[in-house]
């Protein structure tokens, strides 16, 4: 003997066996959990519910009480989250995350753009959140002159710290959020620096040329 429950599935009323009901409920919960991070999760679950209702309606004995075997048949058509495998959720999770939430930890990187030697000190001061690298440089100079350990330390840091080459590297170096807005700002700034150094280079070339012509 089995109890019967009346349910509304996708807007269609069904009478369903209790054991079939529990199986269906478990399945729908699984589906819901599986898609919980996906874009439009509610819509996906609703679509699946409607389709299951349709499958129940398409049974030859559509007016009969829905039995456990009917639920199993419907699940076989729709598939379980395990069947969906890698095709579904993993990257959809990221679709839902707004760009601003992509926060990466600060990274210790060499700031070659503001470097005196290897960019170790300017990178360190960016990492420590100090605006002017002069203080770290003074500290490093103190270590080199005072105890002599500074030189070795500097070389080790130079080797260990990767150079901040791309715009996102530079953001990570300062601990800024890596999002489209910040990256484009950083790239714009990078272009300015590039033009600046090109100009400086140009000046130097002219200077050199002047000297050369004077000598000649």
């Amino acid at each position, binding site marked *: 003997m089995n109890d019967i429950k009346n349910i509304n599935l996708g*807007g269609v009323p069904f009478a369903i066996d209790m054991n079939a009901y529990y199986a269906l409920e478990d399945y729908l919960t699984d589906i819901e959990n599986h898609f919980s991070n996906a*874009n439009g999760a509610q819509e996906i679950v609703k679509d699946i519910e409607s389709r299951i209702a349709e499958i129940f*309606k*398409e049974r030859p004995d559509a007016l009969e009480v829905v039995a456990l075997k009917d639920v199993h048949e419907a699940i076989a058509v729709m598939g379980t989250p395990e*069947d969906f495998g890698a095709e*579904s959720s993993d990257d959809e999770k990221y679709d839902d995350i707004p760009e601003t939430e992509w926060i990466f930890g600060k990274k210790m990187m060499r700031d070659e753009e503001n470097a005196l030697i290897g960019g170790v000190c300017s990178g360190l001061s960016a990492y420590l959140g100090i605006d002017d690298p002069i203080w770290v440089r003074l500290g490093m100079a103190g270590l080199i002159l005072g105890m002599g350990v500074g030189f070795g330390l500097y070389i080790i840091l130079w080797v260990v710290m990767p150079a901040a080459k791309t715009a996102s590297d530079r953001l990570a170096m300062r601990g800024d959020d890596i999002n489209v807005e910040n990256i484009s700002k950083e790239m714009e700034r990078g272009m300015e620096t590039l033009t600046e150094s090109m100009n400086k280079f140009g000046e130097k070339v002219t200077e050199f040329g002047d000297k050369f012509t004077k000598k000649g």
Partner: protein
Amino acid sequence: MASMKAQMRKGILEMCILSIIAKEEIYTSDILIKLKEAELIVVEGTLYPLLTRLKNAGMLAYTWRESNSGPPRKYFSITDEGSEFLTELKASWKQLNKSVSKSMK
């Protein structure tokens, strides 16, 4: 590597779904029948998130149609944006296909 395989599959799957829908306005389970024939997917559940995503991206639109059996059905059709995207996809697929077969010779 597993994820790369899945990514490739997914990209190709989206292209196939778009080109199936580009031919005619179609119901989800009929899309599945075609994809099953092509041995691309086996269970219907895989299809719903993809369709929802393509729809949210403006590639697809749907209309409700009454059904003799059960609740009203969503019939999907391709949007102008979707057709444009599909043309691009097809072009890059051809290019990719050419490059891959060349490099594997």
